[in-house]
């Protein structure tokens, strides 16, 4: 356990990617495989069950430290992280007798056994453990108990750490680590071997586009690129192997159950097929708002009515495997031909090939891009025709050329203390628009300001608080900010009657007084922007 703590702290205390990889490599080389496999599991962000109730852990630490509920909550709101709050408060018991139990004993035996005990016995067991654990160990174990462990490094860095430790093949590794695998020391030791055994419905690692700014002309001649609209859907791979189908989101989450009609469609494809594309809410020939897709994702089980009311299609833009053949080393041009042929032959209403846009010059494309908003797309995708299908976000061949966001000037109404990275500071803000003589909250935003601006704003908020409700403060409606967002839709669940996507702060409008801020009516105008068929 101490070795994992040391790794976690080492990663936490360096900002350099290279050092993080080195720390990971050192860890994997030194740790016994039985522990290493668990570290790998958690560092790859695998789903963890919550083993005990948060409330129970909280009560145990309060009993230990003699603190009232509200003071625990205040501490939590200052620290911004439950496990860390608990860990820090266990120090109130004074010096501890430290022991070192291996990680796999903790996660295979000790932690699961805790969840079988009655509440009071759970608390006693926790208090007993805490006396033998350093603050940092309490922190990590509490994270594991509550299912909230985050390593703070990307999947890619973890894989690079393994590669550096054992000189394993990166591509094979990343493929093996997708989907489910056994958490055993034997399996950890086989990670380096090249074959993959048995039936696999795993997707290929996704190739991701990099953002480009306003001059794609620098990328080369427009004829070198496949140009597509950037749809606001769910990027996914459909996998058909040995008679079975799986649909995976970009986050490598299995989303098959949300889209029964796509599963049925893919069942007709030949075995050994992987299509890459975008799932879109689509009716007739018109794309619909992302909210319609979300309804599908939120359900565990999707009813027939849900399928009928919220129709979707799969817009394929790439074919990664066809009839058992891995096509990823072919050029996009070749893969696209296979895709187009498949879509034609298997003519199915829910399977389409993405539209290719043909423009002679970048200038023409620039003009066309202005239609993005009315077409309900986020901009354009530019993919080099002669590129192979790579892994992850590799710059050079796939680009996304997004349109500028919509903006409104709004007044800050509430502030809430941030969590995690920005604990202890007021960093989450709610903004309002005018409706008659009052300000109606319309968006929450927490990104877009520099640390320095956040610090200043934090001090301002503390001095201009009107009321406090737990971690939230209402502030004097004096400050105007320009808020950017990607989309806007009607939403009866929100007070303002509208909901915006990806709201963020562009800047403070020091030149504007609160009365100069936008009204709900101007937001409604954005909503009524024409919707055009694609």
């Amino acid at each position, binding site marked *: 356990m101490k070795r994992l703590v040391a790794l976690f702290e080492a990663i*936490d*205390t*360096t*900002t350099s990617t290279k050092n993080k990889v080195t720390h990971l490599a050192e860890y994997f080389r030194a740790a016994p495989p039985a522990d290493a496999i668990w570290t790998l599991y958690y560092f790859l962000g695998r789903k963890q069950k919550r083993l005990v109730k948060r409330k129970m852990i909280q009560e145990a630490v309060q009993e230990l*430290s003699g*603190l*009232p509920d*509200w*003071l625990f909550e*205040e*501490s939590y709101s*200052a*620290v*911004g*992280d439950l496990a*860390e*709050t608990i860990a*820090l*408060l266990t*120090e*109130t018991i004074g010096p501890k007798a430290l022991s070192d139990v291996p990680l796999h004993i903790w996660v295979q035996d000790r932690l699961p056994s805790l969840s079988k005990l009655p509440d009071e016995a759970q608390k006693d067991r926790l208090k007993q453990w805490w006396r033998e654990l350093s603050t940092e160990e309490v922190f990590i174990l509490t994270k594991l108990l509550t299912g909230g462990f985050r390593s703070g490094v990307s999947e890619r860095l973890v894989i690079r750490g393994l590669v550096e430790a054992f000189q394993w093949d990166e591509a094979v590794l990343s493929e093996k680590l997708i989907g489910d695998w056994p958490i055993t020391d034997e399996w950890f030791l086989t990670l380096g071997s090249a074959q993959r055994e048995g039936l696999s419905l795993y997707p290929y690692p996704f190739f991701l586009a990099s953002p480009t700014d306003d001059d794609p002309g620098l990328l080369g001649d427009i004829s070198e690129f496949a140009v597509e609209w950037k749809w606001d859907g769910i990027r996914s791979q459909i996998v058909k192997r040995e008679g079975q189908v799986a649909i995976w989101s970009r986050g490598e989450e299995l989303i098959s159950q949300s889209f029964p009609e796509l599963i049925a469609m893919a069942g007709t494809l030949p075995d050994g097929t992987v299509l890459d594309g975008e799932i879109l809410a689509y009716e007739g020939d018109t794309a619909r708002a992302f909210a319609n897709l979300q309804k599908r994702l939120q359900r565990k089980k999707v009813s027939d009515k849900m399928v009928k009311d919220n129709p979707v299609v799969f817009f394929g833009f790439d074919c990664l495997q066809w009839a058992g053949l891995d096509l990823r080393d072919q050029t996009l041009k070749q893969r696209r031909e296979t895709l187009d042929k498949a879509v034609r032959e298997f003519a199915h209403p829910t399977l389409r090939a993405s539209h290719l846009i043909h423009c002679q010059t970048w200038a023409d494309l620039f003009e066309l891009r202005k239609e993005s908003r009315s077409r309900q797309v986020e901009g354009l995708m530019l993919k080099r025709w002669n590129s192979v299908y790579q892994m992850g976000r590799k710059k050079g061949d796939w680009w996304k050329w997004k349109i500028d966001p919509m903006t409104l000037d709004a007044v800050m109404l509430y502030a809430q203390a*941030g*969590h*995690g*990275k*920005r*604990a*202890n*500071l007021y960093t989450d803000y709610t903004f309002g628009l005018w409706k008659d003589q009052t300000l109606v909250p319309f968006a929450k935003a927490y990104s877009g300001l520099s*640390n320095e601006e956040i*610090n200043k704003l*934090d*001090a301002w908020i*503390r001095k201009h608080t009107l009321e*406090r409700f737990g971690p939230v403060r209402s502030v004097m409606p004096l400050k105007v900010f320009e808020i950017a967002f990607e989309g806007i839709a009607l939403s009866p669940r929100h007070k303002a009657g509208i909901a915006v996507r990806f709201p963020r702060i562009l800047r403070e409008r020091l030149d504007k007084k609160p009365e100069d801020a936008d009204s709900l009516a101007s937001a409604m105008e954005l909503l009524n922007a024409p919707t055009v068929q694609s």
Partner: protein
Amino acid sequence: MSTVQPRVPLISVTPRGLYCARGDFYIDPWEGVDVALITHAHSDHAREGSRLYHITQPSLSIIKRRLGADGVYNTHIYGEPFTLGDVLVSFHPAGHILGSAQIRLECEGEVWVVSGDYKRDYDPTCMPFEVVPCDVFITESTFGLPVFVWKSIAEEAEAIYRWWQKNKDLGRNSILACYALGKSQRVLHALQEFTNQPVLLHGATQALVDLYREQGVPLIATEAAADYGKGTKGQLILAPPAAITSVWARKFGPFESGFASGWMRIRGNRRRKAYDQGFVISDHADWPALIQTVRETGAKKIYVTHGYTDELSRFLNEQGHSAEPLETLFAREEDA
């Protein structure tokens, strides 16, 4: 028929700061006034523009440096009372930085103590905190939550030393962001136990280190960072937090950065500040020290200022004290 006159509080909060009408003076006023009593030389407490300053003897050279040599300063020895109007005033050690004081006011048999910033931890660079029994205690609360518990300075100084040596082995410098007044000197004192390699100082820190040395505070050998150029390797360099992100730091690359602050107790702060390392060192009282101090003063009434005012006063009330937040203009201390 006789009516009982409710007593007018000896100190009130005014737009210019804490004011004592019976003695016609302010304590740590935030703008220029006629007569100002200063608890210590940090810039949020000692501000320019007042006609006459009452300060402690050991803080004179520092305050002169910060507020100018031509101000009018009446200096006082710890514990020696003097009279202002109807009020008997005395300064008592606060254990915060060199020359820092609590201010005791006595008027018609009632005693008030204004703590200023204070700590109870070991710090041989200044006089240790003295418990001053009083009726009314105005306490700071910068770190007034139970998650703030300090380790010993020796433990953190050792961590700084190890970090420095690790970076040295890798051919890197270590730049430690450290409040120039008080904390830097405390670190330089504590490092003596681990090494006699000299530590490099940013110019702003250097000036204050010299003033500590003049008063006989023993510190590890130091040299001016300005005398070292590009290619410097394996050095520990102390600098004010603002300097680390400035061009000044660039010539010392490659380096790792560290920050010595009570806020580093919280992981989220460490990440947000983007320092490579955090060291939990503060010159303010931690939670146990705040509670202990309030208890030891025996005060019947406690006013809480400067930090987690609502939280600390609520807790004290639940513990059977009579406490109330005092809204002042002291901002959260980012570098504390």
